[in-house]
């Protein structure tokens, strides 16, 4: 053992077994050499803490101490990590816990938190709102999404990315995936070679679909060109933007495609290993993706893929925070530069791609790519769900398709996006058109608020969301999100200060200008747009 001062409380047998199941049996002798090897395994800290909580329902002092001892992590740091994640409990609680989504879409459908239930940010089940997420600890732990039934796709025609899902290809069967043309894209990629693959992706002008719209080909080229030979590809499936559920649907219903696409990304960039980081609240996606990984070794030619599961932190969808989380640290975003293509996961060149982006890569490799986008339609609409549209369709057409007879406002792009007023619905759903209007497609959220909707309540919920989800690292975001929420509460209750709107505007400017990461930089977007486009608080 290294010379760490450790927590005294021993783990229970159950906790020890659960943690050992993740870390392997403890070595007989624990000399300094072993401590060094243990430290190299720090990235298993979050999986170990999760395992302990799944077994006994919370992270006890004994479990925390045992995980830090096994991994040679200072207990203070392990505590810092454990206390970072909203879903890890550091106080004893019942084994059966229900998290009730009180976020925007579910609030529109009348979500209420019952006695003993926990309020939760968006669970990514907006098309079947109101939604819950239940975790049950024990010898046979399980998690479930409620309602459990996934509704059918609301759209049947013109689907490309959602084709296999619409055709009902069995998401648990490799044979079914192969029969539906699976792994043809990977075979073609191998024929072409890495450089030609990157060239095709670049020519397709594919832009990232996680929200930032960075050209995928450029990212892959940059990783490929690094002299460092140890490289990673990471699939960012920590989809947590309120109102977003597209990546969940893709992973639950077409998981083999994700594995194939990530393997292509690894092949093109020269990475030896890929990670899929999925938010904790998507248990069905964990199961399906893990099964797809396990079943496809023969197709991957030694390219390794590992599934990692979060523990309740929106900020971990920020790519550098995601690295920190995988590495067993607090999910605090890093300053950029250096960018992940140079210094990424474990300090190595890394290409991070969103799930929908990777699905598009398969289309590019199939050779008949034409750009479509997924839209997560929810709120006050008749046919909520996932829609796939060619680029440039007006927002109004999408809303007609989904059935929205009454519209007071539309939230475009999620909580980090912007509100659109009813007289702006002719806007084309392209990057250029939305950007010109001061909007963003973001992660494809289209959330409808009808005439009866409580817009002020929605703004307060958004402000609460960012205040809750700020990692707390930088001042503009840590304190700015608190001050923004306070100002909105005053405005909502009519106790406004004289220069309240000016203060909000300045907070927005400084959070955007001086925050480390995208969370703080976008935390005022929705509020600003509601003031500018909807005239709230006028």
């Amino acid at each position: 053992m290294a010379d760490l001062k450790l927590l005294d409380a021993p783990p229970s047998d159950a906790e020890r077994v659960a943690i050992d199941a993740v870390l392997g049996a403890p070595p007989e002798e624990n000399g300094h050499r072993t401590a060094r090897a243990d430290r190299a395994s720090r990235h298993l800290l979050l999986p170990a803490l999760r395992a302990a909580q799944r077994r006994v329902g919370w992270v006890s002092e004994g479990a925390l101490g045992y995980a830090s001892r096994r991994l040679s992590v200072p207990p203070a740091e392990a505590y810092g990590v454990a206390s970072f994640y909203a879903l890890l409990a550091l106080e004893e609680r019942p084994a059966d816990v229900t998290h009730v989504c009180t976020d925007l879409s579910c609030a529109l459908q009348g979500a209420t938190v019952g006695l003993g239930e926990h309020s939760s940010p968006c669970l990514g089940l907006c098309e079947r709102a109101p939604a819950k997420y239940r975790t049950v600890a024990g010898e046979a732990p399980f998690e479930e999404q409620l309602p459990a039934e996934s509704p059918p796709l609301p759209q049947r025609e013109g689907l490309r990315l959602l084709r296999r899902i619409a055709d009902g290809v069995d998401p648990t069967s490799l044979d079914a995936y192969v029969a539906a043309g699976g792994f043809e894209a990977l075979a073609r990629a191998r024929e072409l070679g890495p450089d030609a693959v990157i060239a095709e992706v670049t020519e397709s002008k594919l832009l990232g679909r996680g929200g930032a719209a960075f050209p995928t080909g450029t990212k892959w080229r940059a990783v490929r060109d690094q002299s460092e030979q140890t490289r990673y590809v990471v699939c960012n499936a920590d989809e947590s933007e309120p109102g977003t559920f597209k990546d969940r649907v893709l992973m639950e219903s077409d998981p083999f495609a994700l594995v194939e696409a990530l393997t292509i990304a690894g092949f093109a960039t020269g990475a030896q290993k890929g990670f899929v980081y999925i938010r904790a609240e998507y248990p069905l996606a964990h199961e399906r993706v893990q099964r797809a990984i396990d079943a496809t070794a023969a197709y991957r030619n030694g390219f390794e893929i590992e599934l990692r599961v979060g523990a309740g932190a929106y900020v971990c969808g920020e790519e550098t925070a995601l690295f920190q989380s995988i590495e067993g640290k607090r999910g605090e975003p890093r300053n950029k530069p250096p960018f992940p293509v140079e210094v990424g996961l474990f300090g190595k060149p890394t290409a991070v791609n969103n799930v929908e982006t990777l699905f598009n890569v398969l289309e590019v490799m199939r050779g008949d790519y034409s750009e479509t986008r997924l839209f997560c339609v929810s709120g006050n609409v008749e046919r909520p769900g996932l829609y796939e549209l060619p680029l440039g369709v007006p927002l109004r057409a999408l809303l007609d398709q989904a059935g929205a007879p009454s519209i007071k406002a539309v939230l475009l792009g999620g909580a980090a996006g912007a509100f659109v007023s009813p007289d702006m619905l002719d806007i084309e759903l392209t990057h250029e058109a939305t950007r010109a209007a001061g909007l963003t497609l973001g992660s494809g959220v289209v959330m409808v608020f009808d005439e009866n909707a409580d817009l002020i309540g929605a703004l307060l919920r958004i402000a609460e969301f960012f205040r809750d989800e700020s990692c707390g690292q930088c001042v503009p975001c840590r304190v700015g999100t608190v001050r923004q929420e306070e100002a909105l509460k005053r405005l909502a209750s009519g106790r406004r200060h004289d220069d309240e709107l000016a203060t909000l505007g300045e907070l927005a400017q400084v959070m955007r200008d001086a925050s480390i990461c995208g969370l703080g930089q976008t935390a005022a977007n929705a509020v600003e747009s509601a003031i500018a486009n909807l005239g709230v608080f006028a």
Partner: protein
Amino acid sequence: MTTLLAAKKMIELTVDGQAVRVFEGSTILDACRQLGIETPTLCYGDTLTPVNVCRVCVVELEGARTLVPSCSRRAEAGMVVHTDSERVRTSRRLVLELLGSSVDLSTAPEALAYIDEYDAKPDRFGPDAARVAHEVKIDNDLYVRDYSKCILCYRCVEACGVDHQNTFAIAVAGRGFDAHISTELDVTLPESACVYCGNCIAVCPTGALMSKREYDMRQDGTWDESQQGVVTTVCAYCGVGCNLELHVQEGEIVNVTSPDDHDVTSGNLCVKGRFGYRFVETR
């Protein structure tokens, strides 16, 4: 040494209209300092890895979407930087207002001076603005932790960790506005890995960490820096040769520090050097 220096490339950038040449690997802050441009910093420490979290040192870099932290952003050839634009001043002022409205800065002279300089008005958010509130922690004879004065600059965590001491007694815990410096499960310092080197006190910019002696004298109203002289000497406990600065008030040692730029200590001491001075008073 000369060959090393000669091998380092020089790059040229422009700060506030003035051309400046710095060694490759320097930061924008280094360039500012070379030009004598005053740049506020709170989380930055000369002997610590920049964490760029306080955001008071931000500057405007032409071509960048957002402001950039000068303390950690490497200078690049051809950069054009503005340190005194309206945008920069607004950002710095509001960040100081956010800090001043949420944290007790009464023992943070640098922060108070910046608040003055930038004409920041921390009370603009009203009397109900949420504040960081913690009970003062007095759980040992050597130092006191008052985290209601903590701006979360991470300096103490860095000093306790790989930057200096490698003790890892403290880390950041919690999240968002509730984030705070803590031992594991908030155990007391005697129960933690702390070795009482006091190097966290040495780097704390706000007085959130303070020696018990200073804390007690402040409580008694007897702490008076204007009456304190500094005597430089070498620590007599072992052969390392740490420089000590003895802060003396009315003939009594009230604090011990070591200069940041000292080759041996980089501002650090051990428990004996920093706290083992009472024997001097034994006559």
